[in-house]
């Protein structure tokens, strides 16, 4: 494991008992966990390669408790790591040895649903899927659908700006959230946004969404809900290679179609999925595309025909249209099982998450094959083809000495490649711990310092979720002093403009 976390503060560790007592005074009953065995379940999130039991776990159930916990930790200089359901794939909720892990799992209430205004106000521990379940009786749903939606919490979705397979058409979390109640590290409670569009002043809500728990702790979320599409149909397309599948995707978009979902799988992923769930994927193709349309039946029927035509024009070897719900779900079954299916090919796999300009896909896949040979590790690819978000799954065996390091290095090379071709380090999983040290691949020190100054405006003591996102955390006072030469006068004596 190549990433190092901040060195634990000895003074904090030495006053652990006093911290526990203070937390118990704020959160009574079973809300403070300090026994070593009971801390184990919290030692990692969805990025299981990294583990660290927290100093203690605090599980408040009111905003006043959250505020008091943060205020106390702020005044005592104790670090805090917020956690939703712990499904982050980038280590966003990885504990620190000298930090309080603040679990928001007890905030489980749906507070209000207003169908005329098409909003739901919920507590942050409500799962993504539970929002949809709360409103589906009236024909509504919450659109962002990360694959962990059965478990992941809306508070975690806000922190990570979670996406899902439908976000090309319906947006990420940030496009579907209207407001939050947020507790700052010093205990202050603020409300950003509300139940209407575009509030006055700076869009602080916009920057809190996706801030990976570094700016504040969300205690209430107002989301937009949408009428559930009347119908959904899918088409399964097999192509000889990724080039032709990519050309098909480009033409679909060029003809003005934004499908609800457009997923690509490469040959290793197709074979792994078919071996696992046996849904009848064609095995003689180099790339598989699943395109889903949703909306009124007239629209789905029309667009399925259009996409079928475009696929034929781009040399599709297989074209199968879903004629009923069962068939549609069968098309998806393999894609949805792709991760566990690939997981059967090797003892461990490592899921990456970069975004590239779609036109570079064939090139990136070729280079990835070279890297695969270089590292001696297999790789399978699933791809949100509509928005260029790539999920390479690197196969390795953690019990073989050095293989985890090799897998991480392979992954880092893939992400460097994404940046090199004009893309980004992460499309939806977040930077967290995992991609923290790669940030300089995408941003200069000036860029990162500017982002960190924003952190300082929310949390000047840098106590909230340290060790995530930024490769190095500068002290805020130091950043304020940094003298910059970028804007110096080139020719101070010459009148300009």
């Amino acid at each position: 494991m190549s990433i190092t976390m901040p060195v634990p503060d000895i003074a904090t560790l030495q006053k652990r008992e006093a911290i526990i007592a203070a937390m118990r005074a704020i959160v009574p009953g079973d809300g403070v966990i300090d026994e070593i065995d009971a801390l184990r379940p919290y030692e990692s999130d969805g990025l299981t390669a990294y583990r660290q039991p927290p100093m203690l776990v605090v599980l408040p159930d009111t905003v006043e408790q959250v505020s008091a916990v943060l205020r106390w930790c702020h005044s005592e200089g104790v670090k805090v790591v917020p956690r939703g359901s712990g499904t982050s794939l980038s280590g966003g909720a990885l504990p620190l040895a000298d930090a309080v892990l603040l679990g928001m799992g007890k905030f489980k209430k749906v507070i209000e649903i207003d169908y005329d205004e098409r909003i739901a106000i919920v507590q942050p521990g409500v799962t993504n899927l539970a929002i949809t379940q709360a409103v589906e009786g009236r024909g509504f749903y919450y659109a962002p659908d990360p694959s962990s939606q059965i478990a992941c919490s809306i508070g975690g979705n806000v922190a990570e700006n979670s996406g899902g397979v439908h976000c090309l058409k319906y947006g990420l979390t940030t496009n579907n959230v209207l407001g939050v109640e947020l507790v700052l590290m010093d205990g202050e409670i603020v409300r950003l946004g509300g139940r209407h569009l575009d509030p006055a002043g700076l869009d602080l809500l916009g920057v809190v969404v996706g801030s990976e728990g570094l700016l504040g702790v969300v205690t209430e979320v107002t989301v937009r809900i949408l009428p559930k599409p009347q119908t959904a149909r899918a088409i399964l397309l097999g192509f000889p290679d990724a080039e032709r599948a990519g050309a098909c995707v480009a033409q679909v978009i060029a003809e003005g179609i934004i499908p609800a979902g457009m997923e690509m799988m490469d040959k290793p992923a197709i074979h792994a999925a078919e071996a696992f769930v046996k849904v009848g994927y064609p095995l003689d193709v180099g790339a598989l595309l699943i395109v889903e349309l949703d909306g009124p039946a007239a629209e789905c029927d029309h667009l399925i025909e259009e996409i079928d035509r475009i696929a034929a024009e781009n040399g599709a070897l297989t074209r199968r249209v879903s004629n009923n719900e069962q068939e549609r779900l069968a098309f998806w079954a393999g894609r949805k099982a792709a991760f566990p299916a690939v997981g059967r090919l090797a003892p461990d796999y490592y899921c990456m998450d970069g975004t590239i300009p779609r036109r570079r896909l064939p090139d990136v896949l070729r280079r990835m094959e070279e890297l695969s040979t270089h590292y001696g590790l297999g790789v399978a690819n699933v791809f949100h083809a509509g928005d260029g978000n790539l999920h390479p799954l690197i196969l390795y065996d953690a019990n073989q000495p050095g293989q985890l390091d090799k897998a991480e290095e392979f992954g880092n090379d893939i992400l460097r490649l994404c940046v090199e071709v004009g893309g980004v380090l992460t499309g939806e999983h977040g930077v967290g711990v995992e991609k923290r040290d790669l940030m300089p691949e995408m941003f200069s020190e000036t860029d990162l310092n500017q982002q960190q100054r924003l952190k300082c405006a929310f949390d000047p003591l840098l106590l909230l979720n340290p060790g995530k996102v930024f490769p190095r955390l500068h002290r805020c006072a130091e950043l304020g002093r940094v003298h910059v030469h970028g804007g110096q006068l080139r020719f101070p004596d010459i009148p300009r403009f």
Partner: protein
Amino acid sequence: MSDIKPQSAQDVCDALADAKRDGVRVEIRGGGSKALIGAPRDVRVISLAAITGVVDYDPAELVLTVRAGTPLAEIEALVASERQMLAFEPFDHGPIFGEASGKATIGGVIAAGVAGSGRVTAGSARDHLLGFTAVSGRAETFVAGGKVVKNVTGFDLSKLFAGSWGRLGAITELTVKVLPRPRVSATLAIEGLDCRASCSAMASALGSHAEVSAAARHPDGTTLFRVTGFEPSVEARCAMLPQLLGGHGAMERIDPTVADALWRDAGTGVSLHGEVLWCLHVPPGRTPEIIEKIEPLGARWSLDWGGGRIWAAVDSDAAPVRAIAQAAGGQAMLIRAPSEMRSTLSAHHPRPSGVAALEARVRRAFDPDSLFETERFLGEETTDAD
């Protein structure tokens, strides 16, 4: 004071370094179409009008990178030539102030968070800005975001800069998401609904399978519904609406050439005459009670975003409008007013003290010397509390 007109991004950086050295506050301006918003002021203006041109446009990738001073009209023509659009439907404020349109720039509409009727379903400027290059108040050039449609790398500064009114930095180059222009755009109308009935009809439509992309109420009382997409879908959805809203009265399909003007009037407040023009963003469920309270003040009004945005023109005594919006959980921005009124009433709706203080700290994070604090937006803390 005279305007400074940098010719390149490096010039912008130098101009800000000059201002920093001279201790002069500056206003970043695009085409100046919104210059009459905010308090009257005499400041050094840095105009980005010469920082123009398309850097990269690949329609299939759905992204467009341009320099900030590029005229909005030019960009709209460019993307239209590829059958695409800016889905947040930005508009030019010039006509609101009795000026010709054509001055608005892409940087200006992004920095002011300007969005049209499609905002209710397609999102605002904030939702379509993917990344940018800017010069901060430290006279430092930095980049944020990316040039792909899906990205969560680092803090989402694009959201923060959209609608920041040039008070965090001067955006010199930006990347926006573009989307396909719908093949067909149909407008259906119901005449004569009062505010409450109109809001109820719009809520039903927006919450239905008819998937209307916009809903507004024209100042003349016509409630408008827009249905966009491919022809078979548009026809099917247009057929659904009269069944769904039949109780509200007869529904008529409007000729597309007429419809454009109706949407412009309803969505931009341009046809509402009066010295004072407000733009209210409110929870749409509260709109009928707001209208009941502002009508006695003599307000002429239109609704957009399914009732979530109210344009209201009044002749005088403007202050109660803001209080009414606030009481209903919304906010009111002062768009057009005589200069005396603008000298005392802030354009931006005031925020609660905790949020205002946080905003001020965020502004100082980008602009430690308060270079961009020109007193254009009254009543906001403009210097470092330390």
